[in-house]
């Protein structure tokens, strides 16, 4: 299993809460940027990928002509028979032209960043689309790309936003009937809203219940899908499978015997264009730390972490966690299902602490 990720680091406007790298004033570099991405690709060892993900930034915000020229060249380099291919879009730029690119290149998933269906919340977040854009573009996506599965993103637990407002968003999203929903609890990737009063308890459980009631299965801490529509590409991240990330601020992961290495590109479009094959950061993890990484990320998946596989690969190293896992199981935060260690609902609510607790017993 291996995935290919392409980062399209352009946005029309920067949302306050967003921690991803993107530039609002670099559209004139689009063409050169795509050239650089292809150069970046040519330096990679791997020539074949199971999944493709074009993310951002806002891939739908660049010129559809340049985008399709790029995809054409990309596909001729790595082929087009992916088991899953996803492209991200935002409602304000989800045009018919963009949708024809989605269709032409056979994307199997279209992921749309809605975040909220409430006008004032959209403003608060710094989004530049309105409530109606969401319904309108979802409808045209269905019409023009009937074979493409739809994912909608939403954010809950936004500081100062009433619970009823976010539950209305959830209801609206369910009414569109996408195949997949990503529902994120607001996280402080930036300082934005850091000092705002949270107006209520986390809606985590309520969100989960509503989506499950609407027929979505929760398969990861923030991700829900109708059966068979889970994002394989993203599952690859949580299972720490290999992936190549192309583009500015993109990361790649490579497993090797005894560890893994993550490499990141510079978070600067212009700098990336100058030297697209260089890495700005390298993060190597080996031995018991590599094991711990698999354990803590794997717990995001509700299907759990397969200990028979961990035992096979890491052997006795695994014992270091025994006492703490036992404690977490006795506290009802983890549970065993055959050889799989799974997070319980009580544990889901405290996943960060569970991860911390496990990580802290590393040498």
């Amino acid at each position, binding site marked *: 299993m291996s995935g290919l*990720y392409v980062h399209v680091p352009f946005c029309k406007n920067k949302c306050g809460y967003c921690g*991803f790298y993107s530039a609002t004033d670099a559209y004139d570099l689009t063409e050169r940027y795509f050239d650089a991405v292809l150069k970046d690709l040519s330096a990679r060892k791997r020539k074949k990928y199971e999944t493709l993900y074009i*993310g951002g930034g806002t891939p739908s915000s660049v010129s559809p002509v340049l985008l399709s020229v790029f995809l054409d060249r990309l596909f001729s380099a790595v082929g087009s028979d992916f088991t899953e291919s996803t492209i991200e879009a935002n409602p304000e730029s989800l045009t018919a032209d963009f949708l024809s690119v989605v269709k032409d290149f056979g994307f199997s998933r279209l992921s749309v960043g809605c975040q909220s269906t409430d006008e004032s919340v959209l403003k608060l977040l710094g989004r530049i689309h309105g409530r109606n854009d969401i319904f309108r573009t979802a409808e045209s996506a269905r019409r023009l790309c009937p074979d493409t599965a739809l994912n909608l993103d939403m954010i809950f*637990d936004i500081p100062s936003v009433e619970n009823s407002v976010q539950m209305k968003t959830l209801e609206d999203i369910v009414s569109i009937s996408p195949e997949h929903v*990503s529902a*994120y*609890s607001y*996280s402080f*990737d930036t300082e934005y809203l850091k000092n705002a009063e949270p107006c209520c*308890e*986390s809606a*985590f459980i309520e969100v989960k219940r509503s989506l499950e009631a609407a027929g979505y299965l929760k398969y990861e*801490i*923030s991700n829900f899908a109708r059966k068979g529509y889970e994002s394989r590409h*993203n599952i690859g*991240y*949580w299972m*720490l499978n290999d*992936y190549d*990330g192309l583009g500015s*601020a*993109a*990361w*790649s*992961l490579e497993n090797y015997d005894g560890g893994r290495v*993550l490499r*990141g590109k510079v978070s600067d479009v212009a700098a990336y264009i100058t030297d697209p094959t260089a890495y700005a*950061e390298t*993060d190597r*993890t080996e031995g018991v730390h590599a094991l711990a*990484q698999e354990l*803590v*990320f794997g717990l*995001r998946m509700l299907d759990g972490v397969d200990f028979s596989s961990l035992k096979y690969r890491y052997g006795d190293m695994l014992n270091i966690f025994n006492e*703490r896992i036992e*404690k977490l199981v006795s*506290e009802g*935060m983890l549970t065993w299902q055959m050889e799989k260690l799974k997070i319980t609902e009580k544990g889901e*609510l*405290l*996943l*960060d*602490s*569970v*991860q*911390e*607790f496990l*990580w*802290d017993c*590393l040498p």
Partner: protein
Amino acid sequence: MGNENIRNFSIIAHIDHGKSTIADRLIEFTAAVDKRQMRDQILDSMDIERERGITVKAQTIRLNYKADDGNSYVLNLIDTPGHVDFTYEVSRSLAACEGALLVVDAAQGVEAQTIANAYMAVDQELDLIPVLNKIDLPSADPDKVKAEIEDIIGIDAADAVLASAKENIGTKEILEAIVKKIPAPVGDVAKPLKAMIVDSWYDSYLGVVVLLRVIDGELKAGDKIQFMSSKAERIVDAVGYFTPKPAKSDVIRAGEVGFMTASIKDIREIDIGDTVTNPRKPTEIPFPGFKKVKPVVFCGMYPVESGDYEDLRDALEKLSLNDSSITYEAESSAALGFGFRIGFLGLLHMEIIQERLEREFDLDLVSTAPTVVYRITKRNGEVIEIDNPAGMPDPTEIDFIEEPVIAATVILPEEYIGGVIQLLISRRGTQRNIKFISKTRAILEYTLPLAEVVMDFYDKLKSVSRGYASFDYEMDGYARGELVKLDILLNKDKVDALSIIVHKDQAFYKGRDLADKLKDVIHRQMFDIAIQAAVGNKILARTTVKAFRKNVTAKCYGGDITRKRKLLEKQKAGKKRMKNVGNVEIPQEAFLAVLKLGDGK
């Protein structure tokens, strides 16, 4: 040069009454130090001394002064530590002098340490010169303070020098008084060598340096000497004076104060108060020596990282080269792992050592609450001493327990008497005497268990008296006490490092208070944490730190994996000072929470 032009003197004072600044002015005036080199409080050479404004080790400096009578004098200033923990060093320094300046703040008047130090000097038959410092302050009342000195200490204060070290007033007058009022040392250069060891310390350039007061005879490089108590013999490498930097000289003679080096590797070979003599021609009457000081306060210190254990051992080894008064012994704790039980002369001494270990040796330490040495007589007649509550035998084996007591002196304005007496009573004090030293100030004399002073006493005293009460004490033997060991259990596991020994009558409220304090410092974790306080099997108090219920996690995609790892590492590093006991993270403050126990209402 004969003895008649030598004066050996100390300066004694209550803390903050200006001892060090007076010393600075004297040094400046006699230009022993270049103006440009002059730093404030030049005698305090350790960083920590400088920061805290107190002197820990005795220091000495030789001043040359041309007096109004036209003669030149050598004035040896032997500085004394200014804190009750180091009283023994004061008495050692005084033994090397014929006189002392008794510095008293002209606004505050006589305080507890003024009395303690002055009595010590009077006992050693020193001539005292009262110096009223800070007379420039608007609140200065020299007449009242003179009367206090006469009433309480019983010396004539009519000729007290009025000074302000800050404004450089009275400096020359002090120097003149030293020359006129302090007798020249008696002693005979012709007699066999007799020199008293005033202090010794380790210097990274010179090795072990021995500070001596030569009583009879003289001492030169190359001389063969003997330490009379150990009978060890050495060849002298060098002798000299402090100016204040060590300056070698050819000889030091009867009446003088100076240093000697003699290829001594280990400071522990030197007994302070021992007599140095000539082995072929020993002095007939050695100096009587000093009682060896014993640590009275103990605490456990543990490296946060268990791998730092050896580093801590090395650091203690090095520190004890400089400070032979600390003792240390390896110990282990189920909660804290391997560490040391360290003995100190008092609480301040403990803080200083702890700070030096962390600062100079870059160690992260967890310390347990300080305790005193309990003497336990078992039913089988065996007597043991314990300096760690964990070492307390089973109550059924104990016949009785004794604890160290102190004779305490508190001087305070009358309006605080009620509050302070209440505090002393709550600390199991018994009154020995109370008397007024002026219309508005009184002296309280109390007997108190030392353990009660070790626990947060100074802060309490300060707050009930708004800082106006001064306190001093001396050890006063042992007394029986109805004492029990109070244990703390976290999730039913006993945490040995949190046990304390308390009076039976205090066990209940101290147990409750400690459980509450721990609840405050142990932050909410993923699990409920049950805190219990118990004596034996009896639970006296219980409380729970509730688990937090939610901390919903962030999203995580390709670029977030490294970020998350870094976050986990950072969080882990943030817990460095925490100890993990039965899956409960205990912050360092928890081990000191016991210090902040209230006085029971």
